């Protein structure tokens, strides 16, 4: 599968709320990071909107399925529009840059997100696994309503 197709596949799993299948795309040592600050270098001593390892990401998906997950019941409907995909080899992994426009709708509120996204992918047979995903929202430092979706 080429890299762009893989990213579209990932987006489709999120938009069809197949969160468990989406989680399977990540390696056991994966990190999923939505920084709080522009050009943020450090996830440990600066806050992040989301900074999850695979364990936390698994818990995040489990929370979304809990019958009293008030902010996630129902889950927001989303469309992930992925474009500007470019890839290069780096340190034995494939580093992919893309842009994301995401429309989210829930509780009569519609929001539009824009982000630069970086994936670090590892070969997995004919497909890929995500070792690292970083989503830099253009408004990460702005005043934001609560975030209960996955980018």
């Amino acid at each position, binding site marked *: 599968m080429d890299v762009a197709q893989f990213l579209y596949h990932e987006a489709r799993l999120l938009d069809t709320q197949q969160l468990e299948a989406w989680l399977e795309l990540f390696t056991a040592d994966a990190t999923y990071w*939505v920084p*709080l*600050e522009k050009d*943020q270098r450090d996830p*440990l*001593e*600066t*806050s*992040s*909107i*989301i*900074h999850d*390892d695979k*364990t*936390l990401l698994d*818990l*995040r998906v*489990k*929370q979304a399925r*809990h*019958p*009293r*997950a*008030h*902010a*996630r019941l129902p889950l927001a409907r989303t469309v992930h529009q992925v474009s500007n995909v470019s890839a290069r080899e780096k340190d034995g992994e494939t580093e992919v840059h893309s842009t994301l426009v995401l429309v989210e709708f829930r*509780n009569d509120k519609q929001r539009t997100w824009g982000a630069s996204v970086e994936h670090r992918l590892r070969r997995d047979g004919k497909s890929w696994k995500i070792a690292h995903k970083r989503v830099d929202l253009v408004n990460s*430092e*702005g*005043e*934001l*309503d*609560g*975030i*209960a979706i996955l980018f």
Partner: protein
Amino acid sequence: MLVQPDRVHRSVYADAQIFDLEMEKIFGRAWLVLGHESQVKYEGDYFTTRMGREPVVVVRETKDRIGAFINRCAHRGTTVCAEGRGNAERFVCPYHGWSYDRSGMLKAAPFADGYAKETLAGMRLKAVPRVAAYRGFIFGSLSSSGESLESFLGPAKASFDDFVDRAPGGVLEVAGGVFKHAYNGNWKLMLENHLDGAHPAWVHASSVAVARGAPEPGKPGEEHYYDIAVRQMRQNGAPDSVWENTGMWTTPRGHGYMGDYHDDSRLVVGMGNPVFDSYRKKLAEEKGEKEADRALRVTLWNTVVYPNCSFMSQFRQMRIIHPLAVDRSVVYTYSFRMPGAPQRMFRDTIAFSNVVNGTGSWVLTDDLEVYERIQRGFASGAVEWAQIGRGYGRDVQEPGGAARGGTGTSEIFIRAQMRAWLDYMTAQ
């Protein structure tokens, strides 16, 4: 009467005219938390914030003086200082170049000849009339008269003392980024939630459940990055008896704090952890064993400083709420580093902040959902009253002006906030 001893009228949360009055009579008078001295360490350092709806700049005017002014040019009303923080010798309006010194005095205006001399003399950015600090925390009041900051804080000073006394050298600094989360709800809903021991089992049911399924915290020295946050989420699922036995204190100005809910063995990476041990050792070297023990045994949890702040001294998190409209609020969440403590401790603060208080948190997002649902309920005119009577009649007066709830789930903290609200709103 909109506020009665055990119930509140819905319009207190939903009526835009009442909100306008609140901005004048509460946010226009009370001491408001503006920030911390570490945000303005050096002369000329400044940061922007709000006092109620007023845009404000807080600035270190001189080595020994912190001031604040309304961020509005005397000429044409422009905000002279862009949002954010920095260091400035002069604040120059982008519209016509009127420039003000660090104390807000007008120093120069182009085409000044066009005015009569006395028109410009003494012109300035309107000063926040009173600015004062308690143990490094900066407060301001938009009223030129009123009680002192210390009298306003009353017994709630103990919570600030706890915050500072835990830090080696008593030094804290704002660090690690600021979360800014907003919700479609009244500002009071947040303050009324932070001391509510009856809500976590319901509101946070989903994060409690997933935290129980999380891997067990690592052995001392081998903790996972997220253990501190998982512990906190699990603690939200504590049995009813824990909540009932939690201490709940309020003050005449509407402040409140919880105690006995956490101790360091349950919550902070506990005794036996090498990082915590070296921190404790440092405190003991500095203050003596006895005082270090005392400082670490103070277990004040959430503290509400009415009407604009809430903080957690053990986790060094502070939230400042800015009301935007009757049904819209924004909250800035700050983390504090203890420069004299092992660096690793700040990682726990950040992990805690991300998972518990952050905009993408497991925990906070469910609170925000509920605030918005309360606001929608209060918008309905079909039902008039909301109940604040749990534990009413069982409050205990304590020396020093505090009142303690009969049990930890008493709604005494809302009754105290509403009594303070009424005092502000009806004062001449």
